[in-house]
């Protein structure tokens, strides 16, 4: 069974708009951020019209409503990824902040000079730079699981790296450039056998696949609302309860405390210990609505639809002379097609496609080391989601032929 994409598209108001006066929008940049269904926009709108108040400790009606909505969203998110408890769902600003939380709180209290952290060559800058910073500050050691020519992680090298006794293995579940879906469960099992803690960057996987944190046995897992039909400005860090409980707070301030004296404080319990200050309340409400929306469509249907579109897109793109695709075969990847076009810079490709209303992304997609590995400065990237159609893929392909013509 799959979804009815024409019905789905009606849920997303932005997909009806035109660009450059009269050209219909062809949105192929969902890996950067997804579009938002009306249900999410209305949930946030209703929150501001009816229930807006600051959460916790308020006794008036609005404060109670706002708190209930904020916490109900947390319950929905917990259920969505099958977390054992909602207190393991820490609200952050985004995936990047979730990873930084682990780097600041868990890593600074558990890692010392010389300790090894294993990353991969396909990481987004958000799962590289926090560790570079810790390396400078603490003298931890970093090593990397290589990416093969076909865009997969070299698990033999991973095995060898694990024999060096790493303290942490942090890796992306799905590459935002290659689309590679890494064998997370297996990688986590191997890491645990070597005594390492694991952190999964799930920014690209949670929006597109059914992710079950208990089946994966992930210690930490990070993702953002805005890539999964929700608003910007809110993300999640999931963590195993015993790890989160033993970690020191991240940011200090209101809400993260139990008691404050002039010269001391005691931190709050989970999840509030990690949520200092007034959080993104309306965004949490929107996040909850996004989870409801995706649940109603069914994540298996989302994944199946994207697979079909990606399969078709790769087949169509492959036939274009001078076009080089990056990443593994369709069955090993999510809805991402990164490519270069001989003789044309990706920025020129993106700019020319934009004139036909086609939105793709060009650049290094916050994965500069991966591009260095393949010896290219940048790629063009088209990406797909539950609302993408084969007709849009055809428009993309026609657009690329136009680019080729222009650059002769």
């Amino acid at each position, binding site marked *: 069974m799959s979804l009815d994409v024409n019905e789905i598209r009606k849920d997303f108001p932005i997909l009806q708009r035109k660009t450059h006066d009269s050209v219909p929008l062809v949105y192929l940049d969902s890996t950067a951020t997804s579009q938002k269904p009306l249900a999410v926009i209305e949930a946030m709108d209703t929150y501001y019209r009816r229930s807006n108040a600051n959460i916790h400790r308020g006794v008036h009606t609005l404060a109670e409503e706002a708190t209930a909505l904020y916490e109900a969203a947390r319950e929905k998110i917990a259920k969505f990824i099958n977390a054992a408890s909602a207190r393991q769902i820490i609200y952050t600003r985004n995936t990047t902040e979730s990873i930084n939380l682990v780097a600041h709180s868990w890593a600074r209290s558990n890692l010392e000079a010389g300790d090894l952290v294993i990353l991969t060559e396909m990481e987004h800058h958000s799962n590289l730079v926090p560790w570079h910073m810790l390396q400078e500050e603490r003298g931890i050691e970093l090593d990397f699981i290589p990416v093969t020519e076909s865009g997969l992680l070299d698990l033999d090298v991973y095995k060898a790296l694990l024999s060096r006794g790493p303290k942490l293995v942090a890796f992306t579940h799905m590459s935002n450039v290659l689309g590679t879906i890494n064998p997370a469960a297996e990688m986590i099992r191997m890491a645990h056998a070597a005594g390492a803690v694991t952190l999964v960057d799930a920014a690209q996987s949670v929006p597109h696949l059914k992710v079950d944190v208990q089946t994966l046995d992930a210690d930490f897992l990070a993702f953002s609302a805005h890539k999964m039909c929700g608003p910007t400005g809110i993300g999640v860090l999931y963590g195993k309860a015993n790890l989160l409980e033993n970690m020191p707070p991240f940011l200090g301030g209101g809400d993260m405390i139990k008691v404050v004296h002039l010269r001391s404080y005691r931190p709050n319990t989970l999840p509030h210990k990690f949520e200092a200050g007034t959080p993104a309340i309306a965004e949490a409400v929107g996040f909850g609505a996004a989870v409801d929306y995706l649940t109603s469509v069914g994540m298996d249907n989302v994944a199946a639809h994207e697979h079909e579109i990606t399969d078709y897109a790769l087949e169509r793109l492959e036939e274009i002379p001078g076009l080089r695709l990056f990443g593994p075969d369709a069955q090993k990847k999510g809805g991402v097609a990164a490519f270069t076009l001989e*003789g*044309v*810079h*990706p*920025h*020129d490709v993106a*700019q*020319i496609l934009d*004139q036909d209303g086609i939105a793709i992304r*060009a*650049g*290094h997609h916050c994965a*500069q080391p991966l*591009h260095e590995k393949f010896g290219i*400065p*940048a790629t063009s990237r088209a990406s797909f989601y539950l609302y993408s159609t084969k007709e849009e893929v055809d428009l993309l392909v026609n657009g690329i032929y136009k680019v080729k013509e*222009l*650059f*002769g």
Partner: protein
Amino acid sequence: MDDLYREVIIEHYKNPSYRGHLDPHDIKFEDNNPLCGDHIEITLQTTEDGTVKDARFDGHGCAISQASADLLVESIIGKPLEDVKKLNKQDILEMLGIDLGPVRLKCALLSLKVLKAGVYGLGEASDELVD
């Protein structure tokens, strides 16, 4: 689009006249645009009275960045360095004959930024050089 990718831009991108590297050179500077990874190096030979005797650019990037580098280098050969220091954003846009949005403007101005940082003998190229 037809405006943005005028024939002159495509032509200078595909067949640049001044791509290369001068050795020896009197001035050399390079920089990149972190947003897109465009890279430009400019080398100059100058005369004793402060005139550009010869110039070349090298690097990689989009059509806008590479064509503007070729046009810029072409325009400064034989010019006093004092005049080169006065070049600004408007001069580049006139050479290209197009108007650009803020993102692509950075591509177009990279070569001027590199050139002026080199001529002024600065350690680092800043956006203020091309405002």
